[in-house]
């Protein structure tokens, strides 16, 4: 179970690893930053899928919502968003250092809040569904969200948005976003550890074990589910805001792709241990190059073998999605920094290099 608090030595080690990693491997700063992002993905997905037994395939919706909200706030504070994103724009727009950081700070906060608001709104729909229907429903939310934004001219439609340029040297930029993502992962870890130590943790575990029983005992199941969904959305919104600025360009359809991959980075059995998120993510995200295909097959087999019945179908779905990623068929996704060595064809490797 996840009741006990983290040991101070564990916290210290995590901090040490987090701070030392970009200093020891400066060439991999972005990749390690993405690793922390994956950990945030895994932990927030765990709140729903692992702890509560609700396999969400739509968490990426909040990540994307955070990205776009932050972009709109950052730009909208100083310029007309429609003008900024217009394909007909001829003027070159530069943000001053003060403008950039002020906009970014407001944008990150707004991203978390907007994602949480969207979570509350969508919860009225998606929590009318259970089991595989919930998974499909949340996937629908993510895909519909992407399609709607991809046809919304004001936010750049399918052309996406070029984010304001970071006012500093490239290495400074890498370190800035690395530490933001690391800090976010660390905060999320501590927050969720606390959350699971309260009655909230027990209640969502009860929903996972037997929701009908929980209802028969008078538990406010809908309230717990909605809150869990909103908490996950809040942190994903912030993660999206940071990551959107880190990569410098956001596009709705590219963001919406890695929906099923959330679960891939999570413990396959829903046991929901933090070690599973941190180590599992590290092992699976492609920062271990060259043997990704082999690792994937092994993971797939283990996942299907060890997973609870409710998870098995999803685990079987995952390799297909990830295989496309590894082969570099999808370019420009958030996963692309990890894809180069794993890409099996020369064309795919070139594509991955281009996007990285």
């Amino acid at each position: 179970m996840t009741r006990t608090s983290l040991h101070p030595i564990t916290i210290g080690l995590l901090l040490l690893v987090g701070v030392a990693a970009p200093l020891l491997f400066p060439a991999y700063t972005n990749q390690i930053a993405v690793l922390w992002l994956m950990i945030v993905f895994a932990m927030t997905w765990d709140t729903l899928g692992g702890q509560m037994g609700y396999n969400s395939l739509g968490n990426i919706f909040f990540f994307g919502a955070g990205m776009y909200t932050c972009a709109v706030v950052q730009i909208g504070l100083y310029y007309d968003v429609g003008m900024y994103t217009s394909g007909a724009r001829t003027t070159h727009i530069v943000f001053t250092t003060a403008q950039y950081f002020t906009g970014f700070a407001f944008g990150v906060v707004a991203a978390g809040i907007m994602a949480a608001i969207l979570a509350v709104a969508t919860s009225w729909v998606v929590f009318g569904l259970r089991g595989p229907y919930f998974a499909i429903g949340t996937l629908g939310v993510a895909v519909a969200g992407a399609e709607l934004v991809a046809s919304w001219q004001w936010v750049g439609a399918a052309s996406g948005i070029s984010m304001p340029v970071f006012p500093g040297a490239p290495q400074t930029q890498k370190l800035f976003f690395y530490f933001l993502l690391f800090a976010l992962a660390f905060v999320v870890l501590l927050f969720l550890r606390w959350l699971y130590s309260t009655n909230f943790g027990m209640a969502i575990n009860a929903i996972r074990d037997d929701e009908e029983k929980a209802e028969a005992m008078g538990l406010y199941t809908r309230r717990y589910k909605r809150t869990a969904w909103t908490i996950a959305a809040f942190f994903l919104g912030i993660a999206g805001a940071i990551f959107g600025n880190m990569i410098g360009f956001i596009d709705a359809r590219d963001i919406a792709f890695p929906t099923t991959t959330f679960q891939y980075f999570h413990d396959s059995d829903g046991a929901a241990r933090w070690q599973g998120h941190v180590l599992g993510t590290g092992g699976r995200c492609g920062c271990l190059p060259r043997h990704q295909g082999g690792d994937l097959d092994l993971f797939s087999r283990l996942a299907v073998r060890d997973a609870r019945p409710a998870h098995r179908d999803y685990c079987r779905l995952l390799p297909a999605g990830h295989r496309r990623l590894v082969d570099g068929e999808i370019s420009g996704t958030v996963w692309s920094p990890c894809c180069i060595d794993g890409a099996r064809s020369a064309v795919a490797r070139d594509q991955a290099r281009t996007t990285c």
Partner: protein
Amino acid sequence: MNDAIIELTNVTKSFGGVVANRNVSLSVPRGRITGLIGPNGSGKTTLFNSIVGYHPIDSGSIRFEGQEISQLRVQEIARLGLLRTFQTTRIYGKMSCLQNMQISIPHRKAGFFDMFAYDRPDVIERAEHLLSFVGLYEKRFLRAGSLSFGQQKLLEFAMALMNEPTVLLLDEPTAGINPTLINGLIDRLKRANAEFGITMLIIEHNMRVIMNMASKIYCLAHGEMLAAGAPEEIQGNQNVVDAYLGAH
């Protein structure tokens, strides 16, 4: 009767063309143990499910403490203090017995921020007391799913008590339990009724158990009320005997 805590009037429930309950009326007196018997497929569990809100009824009225509850949801009914246990035991298998108890506290007055509260010592103390009451204190830190079926039944009963219900609906509480443990369970049910003042409506196939506990028994057959009365009246009712032996 004025002291009826649950009153069903002409309750009808159909599933497509199958009428599971037809014009069923019964009343459960406050503070007593009432039995509900009938052959397999007679509609007992459907009636339970209708009372606690799982199956919305087609027509009729279900009143709990004078309040119409037939339109309420499962959780709302549970929070009124009308709780049920299941024919097939339902516990939170991956949580410990103690956690099963802790999460079973009454949620009637729970506000939003109570979700993030820690368990109070008095809650844990009460949970341990009730686990002791059903003989599971020694197993309080074990995973509930690892208990035997009979022990899970006891745990489910303890969880129901933890919720401080006004009325407890028990669906075949002795089914699947070792005969040697049945006497202990009967004793605990009676004590819960006497000591905690919990009204009970019990579905039971074990005639010795139900005749021993209930002050009034209703008998359903083919979804209709066949007989009602004191245990000795039911035992002597030829219609009831025929229903069980297949003559009906």
